[in-house]
């Protein structure tokens, strides 16, 4: 597929059109390969390229160099993922490249959350966007005994290192 075919097929206009028409040869080939692999809508492609360009600018890299990174390449060439799944997975990988520290904190919080869920059957949620200092636990009970069970679990949970870790991560400690 050529870039012009994609432009015509998706009726690409506005800023994406000028981005696609300004691509250097090697970048253009990489974007064509990406389009073939994931068949994105114009909006989806624009969102992905915005992330790619920000990474390029921050790291002083060319667009085709970012698209050739193993984490990106592995998603695009994955044999078992559908095109939609590849689009979603690619966005996650690009966001992890664009926001490495945020991604690292999120991964650690998720790990702590999973540990608490596994040990106590309680889902401890971090605040939206990691903004705030409040963890949330939601309980549903059918009896007073269940209340008592949860009270015991919460007591144990409060002493578990994973719970303390979640607070520390939120506070940037």
């Amino acid at each position: 597929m050529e870039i012009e075919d994609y432009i015509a097929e998706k009726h690409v206009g506005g800023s994406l059109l000028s981005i696609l028409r300004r691509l250097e040869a090697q970048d253009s080939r990489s974007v064509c390969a990406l389009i073939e692999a994931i068949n994105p809508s114009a909006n989806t492609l624009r969102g992905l390229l915005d992330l790619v360009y920000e990474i390029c600018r921050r790291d002083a890299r060319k667009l085709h160099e970012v698209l050739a990174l193993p984490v990106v390449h592995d998603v695009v060439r994955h044999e078992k993922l559908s095109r939609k799944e590849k689009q979603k997975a690619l966005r996650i990988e690009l966001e992890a490249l664009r926001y490495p520290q945020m991604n690292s904190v999120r991964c650690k919080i998720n790990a702590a959350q999973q540990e608490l869920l596994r040990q106590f059957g309680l889902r401890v949620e971090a605040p939206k966007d990691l903004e705030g200092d409040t963890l949330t636990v939601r309980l549903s009970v059918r009896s007073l005994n269940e209340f008592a069970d949860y009270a015991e679990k919460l007591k144990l949970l409060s002493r578990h290192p994973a719970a303390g870790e979640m607070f520390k991560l939120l506070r940037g400690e």
Partner: protein
Amino acid sequence: MPERVFVVGDAAEDVVAQRVLSRLGAVEVVNLDSDDDPLRAPSGAGAGEESSHISLGKRWLMLKRYRGKWLKGCPGTLGHVCCNLWVVNPGEGCPLDCTYCALQHYFRRNPTLKLFTNTGEMLKEIEQRTSAEPRRRFRICTGELTDSLVFDHLTDLSLELVPLFARLPNAVLEFKTKDCEVDNLLTLRHEHGGKTVVSWSVNAPEVVEQDEALTASLEQRMNAAALVAEAGYRVGLHFDPLVFYPGWKEGYCATIRYIFSRIDAENIAWISIAPLRYHPEQQEIMLRRFPESRLPLVENFLAKDNKLRIFQPLRFEMLRFIWKELHAVRAGMPVYMCMESPAAWRSIVGGPPLAGTELAEIFSRSACCRV
């Protein structure tokens, strides 16, 4: 120095306008009937057109009368702890060119620099308002919508403001600047009465070098700070914005060490610390106007107040680090966080700033105590 000056209608009769024009010397002067900005962007103008107008606007100057209310509360930001600063704006826009400056977005459709020529009315309003509420402590800053001192050699406004505040029992004046223009202030060493605080915006050396075009160097700022401190003024510092970059800890430590090698910590009236935050539309302006800057590429997210902010764990790490470094210089250093969440105060300081509204009161009181 501006390349072109626009004088609007009756502003030409004002002493301030005549003083500015005489000091500018040979400059193109255009008289206007309308006070519309000559660079006013048409509705629907794109970021490209706006960006080029912003750059041109920094070289044009409009002299006009201000028609609105002068003294206002700082708008603060939704859901964040506010220090209850009051602001007056003797002008709008700034000839300095910092990559992160909020004014380039705020005035993107009206980017010509402006100086108001009826500042006598501003002084009257300050006096009337503060005397009408004698029990309230006012900390009033002139540096919200422009640099407080960058035009002082043209306007001499400080020569009127400083003596006025010396007479006001319940108000403190704050100049906030990145310039080193303090000649007028030094002539008032016996008249300021300890009621004027001269504040400098400071940053890590790498940020000053790469993201604060046309400003005085950190050394020049601290030279000026040392001079005003020697003249009996108290000094404020604003670590704003705190910028994340590789090596930020070393950079900010170097700045703190340098500052306190030049100024006695006892002369500090207050220090604010505030991580980078800006309106999302400003991102496009920054990327266009400063293609070399890495600053728009930090790890930020769109917060509830519709500003891009550094994500909390990193933001808190930065705030905690600077907070500790400043308190290591002096245990009781009057540091506050500007536009931060209650969670930040709990996590970094251990509690809210003395039940909220007292923060401004404390700072005003501590400055007044020097009288």
